[in-house]
């Protein structure tokens, strides 16, 4: 029986014949790592602000305090932003390892970004339809997550390459 060959287009973007990540994959995962770094800075700032007790003021016309002071901004005693820190950290570590050719890291990145994407959709819904207020830091995080999701779709996980 003939062995199923990987899609040459997909292989090109993820790894070279020697098993190392291709140049394109390194660039794409590096961009993903930079995006997660920006998200990490955003979430860390919000977490530190929340824990310090200071009200966060927004840039632009958004109304941060209505969003960040709402019950939706906490899970128990922990600020939601702290979970954002954890998620961005996981995504960052996975993106760095993926850029260095660790195959399992791509799957971890995909799962992390998928979870972040779903959480972002929920939080956007809360801002738009429940609170009727937006927080610019949250919108920045949403934009970063959407960009990350786009990257994960551009670079498929190894299972699709090696099938």
């Amino acid at each position, binding site marked *: 029986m003939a062995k199923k060959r990987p899609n040459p287009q997909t292989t090109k973007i993820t790894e070279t014949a020697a098993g190392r990540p291709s140049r394109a994959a390194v660039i794409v995962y590096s961009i993903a790592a930079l995006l997660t770094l920006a998200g990490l800075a955003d979430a860390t700032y919000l977490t530190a602000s929340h824990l*310090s007790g200071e009200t966060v003021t927004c840039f632009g016309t958004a109304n941060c305090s209505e969003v960040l002071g709402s019950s939706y901004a906490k899970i128990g005693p922990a600020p939601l932003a702290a979970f954002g820190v954890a998620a961005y950290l996981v995504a*960052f570590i996975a993106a*760095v390892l993926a850029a260095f050719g660790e195959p399992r890291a791509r799957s971890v990145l995909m799962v992390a970004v998928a979870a972040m994407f779903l959480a972002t959709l929920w939080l956007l819904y809360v801002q738009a339809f429940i609170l009727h207020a937006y927080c610019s830091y949250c919108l920045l995080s949403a934009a970063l997550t959407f960009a990350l999701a786009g990257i994960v779709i551009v670079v498929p996980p190894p299972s699709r390459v090696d099938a």
Partner: protein
Amino acid sequence: MRRFLPYAIIAVVLLGTATAGTLVYRAKHARVLEASARTAADNVGGKAGAVPAHAHGPDNAAVTIEEFADFQCPPCAAVAGLVYNLDKDFPGKLRLVFRQYPLDMHKNARLAALGAEAAGLQGKFWDMHKQLFLKQQEWSKADDFRSVLDNYAKQIGLAVDRFGKDLDSEKVVSRLKQDRERATSLGVTSTPTLFINGQAVPAEARTPDGFRAAIQKAIDGKKAP
């Protein structure tokens, strides 16, 4: 070497995140503690008034003056002249806290107080304070004070649409209520009533000269060993 590079990058980022988070937390927490100490200093005795209070002057001033005033009261306008010269007369030594106490007998006083609070939401409380006291005679008996107020808002550079909405907002109304509760708890019944470092200035001294003398006395008292 290449094998360890990703772990080194991850370690640097973890360390950077922890450090940055700690620095932001410390800076913000220090500000929160400072603000809470200031709020306590602005609310000596009695119930707390609106927070944050409208204050002018350094946080660590030797003397804090808390004034309860009505924008439509003529003696308050006379005292306001003194207030505007505080920086010049007592540089760096005074902190003035303004509290709202609009009197029911003055038909436009409450709306004036709301107007000053609404201006405060755009960071221009003291500009509106000045406008209202300096032009007191112009608006005191005005029948359509609302449009006069809009005009003042325009003159001091406020976003007039937002100002109009803020005038009736819960946030503004509740500030007046909190100041009134503080006034009641301190036994204030008339305007202007001033407290210098928590001590009420006697009724007979409630003139610009009387206040100036009381302020000087408080500053001299702070200087004494």
